[in-house]
């Protein structure tokens, strides 16, 4: 299988957190934190059947890269950032996004990954449609 080296990617394929963590590979790293978003079966008490994610991929990969740059600017001890977001039809329990950060030590990775998720939800041109029995709705956190 071809080795993936893109740190910021929109993909319609299944995501693996191990595989995203491997993209950070660097012999000096010591701590990696990976945030894994998993499709929930329920929102606001309503049973979700599946999700559909849509992106503006030509822009979104650049936006993810910008989030990575912001993090490395703000937290100098963060070494690498990788963000991979899946689009298309996602079933309950599947992984929608993996955000992985590495640092020599674990200080700051928590704040940095928190920031990454907030920014992802705020600026990445990615949309989520919840499909339930008898309806569907595009959701945003705005």
């Amino acid at each position: 299988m071809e080795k993936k080296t893109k740190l910021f990617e929109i993909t319609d394929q299944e995501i693996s957190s191990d595989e995203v963590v491997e993209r950070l590979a660097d012999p000096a790293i010591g701590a990696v934190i990976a945030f894994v978003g998993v499709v929930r079966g329920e929102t606001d008490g309503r049973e979700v059947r599946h999700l559909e994610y849509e992106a503006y991929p030509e822009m979104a990969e650049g936006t993810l890269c910008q989030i990575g740059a912001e993090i490395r600017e703000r937290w100098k001890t963060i070494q690498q950032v990788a963000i991979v977001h899946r689009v298309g039809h996602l079933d309950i329990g599947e992984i929608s996004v993996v955000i992985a950060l590495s640092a020599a030590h674990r200080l700051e990775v928590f704040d940095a990954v928190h920031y990454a998720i907030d920014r992802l939800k705020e600026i990445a041109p990615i949309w989520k449609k919840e499909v339930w029995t008898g309806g569907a709705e595009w959701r945003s956190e705005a």
Partner: protein
Amino acid sequence: MKVTVKLFAALREEMGSREFEQDLAPGSTVQELLDWMLEEYPALRPYVRSLHFALNHKYVTRQTELHDGDEVAFLPPVGGG
């Protein structure tokens, strides 16, 4: 001049299209493109207040001037993650 307009999510569904080409007077802004589209497609109206805009893959304001060949995206509220 001609620009490409890209639509996403609820807006794409509302308009029944992902993308179209638009003729505009030279020097038109994002706001002028939007105004023109609102006249042509009143169904757009409920989305207008919450839209953001990207020009050639970067966020821009409504005052940004467009040029021939530009790609303008109308972005409803995002919700990745």
